[in-house]
């Protein structure tokens, strides 16, 4: 008897094969499109062939710049990651503090949560000009854009999760003599940390977005800066590897955060294996 579709499972090899298939198709489509365009106009820059891309990769990723002696890709990556890390760190700290305070302390919630709700709806790109003017064009404004872009989300998410905590735990802690501060420090905070990391994982995409947008407007280096710079010449042979590289970095940071969560919070996974 034939099984229902929902009951049919591919094997291990099947999963690997099926998973790779769309990527292979995409690469094939690209190669065809590129060949067609290049046949039409050998100077076409939109869909460069793989040799051209490889050449560009060698240039940006392995050849030191004559003037500065730096390798462009690594210098850009370092600059971008520093900004991203700083922005994420600040946003995370803010999200944690405000989120927990909003979730646990009624007076703080009354005062701050409407503000956070409204601010989270403000499109950060629209206030970008204001940001630059208030915070200048240095690193600060880029970090601030990331913070403004993701901190409200983190705050609201953490608040929701703090509010979701079983009331019973807070009561229990009180009957064990804990003060508000002790409850926050020893009951709420440790349980929020893994959720915070999950929320940060969700914010990685937007964080990259804001970083790239900020770097496009004012920067002297960085992945977004480079893409923006060469966009004027439609140098897709540089843009495409950069996009792939950013995607890889995003995936890597996602995996890293996941691993951190598993490492630091054994109690989360405990019992899963039972």
């Amino acid at each position, binding site marked *: 008897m034939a099984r229902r579709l929902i009951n049919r499972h591919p094997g291990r090899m099947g999963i690997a094969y099926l998973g790779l298939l769309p990527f292979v198709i995409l690469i094939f489509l690209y190669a065809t499109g590129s060949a067609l365009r290049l046949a039409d106009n050998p100077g076409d820059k939109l869909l460069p062939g793989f040799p051209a891309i490889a050449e560009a990769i060698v240039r940006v990723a392995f050849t030191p710049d004559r003037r500065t002696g730096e390798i462009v890709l690594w210098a850009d990556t370092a600059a971008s990651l520093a900004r991203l890390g700083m922005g994420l760190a600040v946003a995370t700290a803010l999200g944690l503090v405000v989120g927990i305070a909003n979730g646990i302390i009624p007076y703080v919630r009354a005062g701050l949560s409407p503000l956070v709700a409204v601010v989270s709806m403000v499109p950060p790109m629209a206030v970008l000009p204001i940001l630059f003017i208030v915070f200048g064009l240095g690193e600060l404004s880029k970090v601030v854009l990331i913070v403004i872009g993701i901190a409200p989300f983190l705050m609201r998410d953490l608040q929701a999760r703090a509010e979701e905590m*079983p009331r*019973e*735990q807070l*009561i*229990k*802690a*009180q*009957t*064990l*003599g*804990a*003060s508000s*501060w*002790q409850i926050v*420090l*020893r*009951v709420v905070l*440790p*349980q929020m940390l893994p959720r915070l990391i999950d929320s940060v994982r969700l914010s990685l995409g937007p964080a990259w977005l804001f970083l790239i947008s900020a770097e496009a407007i004012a920067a002297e280096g960085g992945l977004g800066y480079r893409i923006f710079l060469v966009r004027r010449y439609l140098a897709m042979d540089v843009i495409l590897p950069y996009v792939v590289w950013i995607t890889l970095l995003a995936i890597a940071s996602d995996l890293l955060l996941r691993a951190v969560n598993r490492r630091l*919070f*054994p*109690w989360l996974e*405990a*019992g*899963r294996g*039972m």
Partner: protein
Amino acid sequence: MTQVTVRDVWKEYDGNVVIERVNLDVAAHSFVSIVGPSGCGKSTFLRMLLSQEIPTRGEIRVDGAPLPPEPTEERGVVFQRYSVFPHLTAAENVAFGLEVAASPLLGRLFGNRRRAVLEQCRAALDAVGLGAACDKYPAQLSGGMQQRLAIAQALIKKPKVLLLDEPFGALDPGIRVDIHKLMLKLFDETGMTVFMVTHDLREAFHLGTRLIAFDRYKTRPEEIGVYGATITFDLPLDRASAREKGEALDELQDKVAVQPA
């Protein structure tokens, strides 16, 4: 040895009366089993004993003193679920109450002092039969073991009053037998006063020294919210004969089973 006095207590939520005219004098070292149909206000009553809720009218006194307006160490509690902290091991769960008392700022001890406290907790866990599970996280423990842990955690603070809200409701029958034995042993040893809400009449009879039932005395739909539940049945079990208990069981059997639509 703790007495609890409840004087004409009412509780309303948004103008709806949930509990009305509750009067109760509980002698020192009593084990009060509380039964009643679902939604009649048993948990609400327990929450008032805990100061998690404040009575709309009336007063509750423990050893003659009015209750403070929020939960304190003198009244311990074990809920049906979520009583223990999932991010702490069994020993750390028990140590929590001792650590917050000893370290106001960080709520946490280090080095030798921590080791001493954990040793003490190990002994407390031994007493509830969890000696071997000291370093396990709650998620690694079965339901019954988690409730034992919650009890050990509450008892380490030596509360005057222990409040239990359906503490064994989620456990399988076989496991309940053991934990009942443990409960009785601890009750005898500590001398505290216990209030326990349960849906299981057998459990109520088995553990309690006194049985009270909450119920609505007006139950027509239009009367709900206007009239609340109150104590409709009060039986001192330690002095009741087997026949009295049997009658009480029959009388209560139907009531407790009533479910709201």
